[in-house]
């Protein structure tokens, strides 16, 4: 946590110097094929990657919100469908499990002189990925609506619900809260946040044995249920992008989504009155805990194992050029929190730094975490629809996880 802060402070004073290493940009041989998630910050990053690769490069990028579902199949093939993948602390473990991304030490040594140390994702002494941004989910609110009703900015989820109910009662909005509750990865993530906010642990320490069916799990689920009650009734079909659209349509006064959402919510498109009224706030804590109910994420890139060395080098150079581009970072200071040397954080960085300060946990990078996340994705729906008790839903999660983890060889 402190490291992030230090890095951010440090980046105010330092300047970007390409030391005497090779310049990464202007790739002429090898092809660059990148698989990435779909949101505005990644688009900004990819524009920079493309311009770094240069006009002669064989460059293509596939943006997909289903990137996590595609990655294993796409990178397992030999030669792989993509030469590089944008990864996070959530998705890198899956690729590491199957040895689908390669160590980057030699490439970093050759080109990476402008990299900061905290950009290097080092696992067991080898660099497996290069991070370029930090992200977290936190609260967003509409200042004028809260002011009109005399509501203070909520700092706990209990206050969020009270505020949402007050807005609902005032008749200003029918469904004032929004979160990405789409059944699937998003819903799983909401539970992960809330469970960690209650101080829960997903696994019995040091083992792959799951333990979420406990008082903290039930409390987390009940809190999610109360949030969905002040959300749009279609909440099970809304992912982050859909929530952002609701926000931009003025249907929502409080939401808990990614910091990188600022790139599209605070741009010059859409209703400028709503933009001017949009404020960012720290992620709330829950159930009397001190930790915010959110997780810290880094986003970076990894290079496929099953691609030729020439393609790997070409992809690494272009991506590294963007991941060390101070100009890009400072031209888009609010798009996210860049980890790039020489970046001056914009006004929107506060909530993420705050989360790090208050002890938010990074998303667990455990080899079997994605199996649990998958089980959470599908087994919580019935509870949120009121067809099942919280204990039953959590028992189902555990049972679904055990079946999958057994088949995968973790148990």
């Amino acid at each position, binding site marked *: 946590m*402190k*490291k*992030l802060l230090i*890095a951010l402070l440090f980046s105010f004073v330092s300047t970007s110097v390409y030391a005497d290493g090779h310049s990464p940009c202007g790739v002429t041989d090898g092809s660059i094929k990148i698989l990435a998630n779909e949101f505005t910050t990644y688009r900004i990053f990819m524009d920079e990657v493309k311009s770094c690769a240069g006009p002669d490069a064989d460059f293509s990028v596939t943006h997909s919100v*289903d990137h996590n*579902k595609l990655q*294993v*199949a796409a990178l*397992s093939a030999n030669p792989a469908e993509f030469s590089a993948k944008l990864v996070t*602390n959530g*998705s890198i*473990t*899956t690729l*590491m*499990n*199957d*040895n689908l991304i390669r160590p980057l030490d030699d490439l970093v040594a050759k080109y990476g002189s402008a990299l900061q140390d*905290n*950009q*290097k*994702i*080092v*696992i*067991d002494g080898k660099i497996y990925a290069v*991070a370029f941004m*930090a992200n977290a989910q936190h609260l967003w609110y509409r200042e004028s609506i809260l002011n009109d009703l005399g509501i203070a900015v909520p700092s706990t989820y209990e206050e969020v619900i009270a505020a949402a109910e007050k807005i609902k009662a005032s008749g200003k909005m*029918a469904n004032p809260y929004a979160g990405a509750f789409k*059944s*699937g*990865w998003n*819903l799983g993530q909401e539970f992960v946040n809330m469970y960690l906010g209650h101080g829960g642990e997903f696994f019995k320490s040091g083992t792959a044995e799951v333990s979420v069916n406990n008082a903290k799990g039930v409390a987390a689920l009940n809190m999610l249920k109360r949030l969905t009650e002040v959300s749009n*009734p*279609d*909440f*099970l*079909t809304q992912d982050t992008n859909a929530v952002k659209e609701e926000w931009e349509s003025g249907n929502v006064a409080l939401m808990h989504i990614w910091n990188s959402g600022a790139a599209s919510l605070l741009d010059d498109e859409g209703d400028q009155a709503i933009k001017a009224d949009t404020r960012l706030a720290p992620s709330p804590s829950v159930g009397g805990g001190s930790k915010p109910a959110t997780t*810290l994420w*880094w986003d970076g890139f990894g290079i496929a194992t099953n691609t030729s060395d020439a393609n790997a080098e070409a992809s690494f150079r272009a991506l590294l050029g963007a991941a060390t581009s101070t100009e890009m970072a400072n031209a888009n200071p609010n798009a996210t929190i860049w980890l790039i040397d020489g970046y001056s954080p914009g006004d929107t960085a506060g909530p993420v730094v705050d989360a*790090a300060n208050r002890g938010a946990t*990074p998303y667990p*990078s*455990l*080899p079997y975490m*994605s199996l649990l*996340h998958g089980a959470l994705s*599908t087994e919580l*729906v019935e509870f949120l*629809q009121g*067809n099942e008790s919280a204990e039953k839903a959590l028992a*189902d999660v555990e*049972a*679904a996880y*055990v*079946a*999958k983890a*057994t*088949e*995968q*060889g*973790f148990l």
Partner: protein
Amino acid sequence: MPHRTFFWFFFPSGLAMLLFIGLPIISSFFQSLHIEPEQILMEVEKCDPFGCKTETKVDIEATTKLQEEQPLGRFNGLGTYGDRNHLAFSEIKEAWTNSLSIAEFIDILLNLPFYKALLFTLTFCFAVTPPVVVLGFIVALSVNTITKSLKGPTIFGVILPMIVTPLIGSLVLFWMIDAKGILGSFIQFLFDDPNLSLKSSSQLTWITLIIYGIWHNTPFAFVVFYAALQTVPQDPIEAAIIDGASRYERVRHIVIPHLYPVATFIILICLMDNFRVLEPIIGFAAEGVAQSLSWMIYNDLRSENKMLFGSAGATSMLTIVGVAVLLTPVLIRTWREFRTER
């Protein structure tokens, strides 16, 4: 046709079926008997922007070695078929001994993923197929009677739902039934309930999917019925007209008996198609409340981690068994008709 001619006539398609359908089924079956080799875990130091700590990771070298020794994975026999995500034998046994009433037992049963998916798949099949046959027939009869100049455009309009890619069709409808979409807000207006949303409850989502299924499948029934209508012999119809039979009587006693075998064919194809329902579930983002067997396979192969080949293979085998069971009555019927015609 002499057997020899028939053999050479059938040989190319038979070979293609063997290569592209037979062999993959056999390979899926073998895969379904295996599970992944054991994952060897190790503790390593991990450093990222948030600091360094010791964490568990898969020991790639050791695990790769195991994988090379057993490329198919560990042999698990029919274990995958019986686990909780498939037939769930032990869970069912436990539920049977522990539940106090049949209702409670059924409740537990339908909470298991496979049976939940089976329930939706069968409901979808049997709710969609009959209306498709009836509607297809009515539409074919109607189109058959309109004037020639209008026929072309009408037929085009009628088969449009079939031309639209299922995924795109369901996405278009998904946005139309959104609370702020044209259909969604109309329904809210109709029932005078501003909070009514077709996407919010399981029952309404199921109904939406079923209506979509009927909309999408009717053109197929229409095309087949329409073609068959062109073969209805005119002599008995003219004779019936002379005898003073009404339009209804002519349809009931001459057209319908003539189209009977065609209807069997349509039911067969529709049941088979609807048993594999997948795209509307994805398009309507209904994964949470409506899972089909095909969706389970899709989910095993496209979840956020390693592809669960064993699990997907087992579900595929069970789907094939399901299709076979479903089609048996229709096939027996066809076979009998075939025998009597001889």
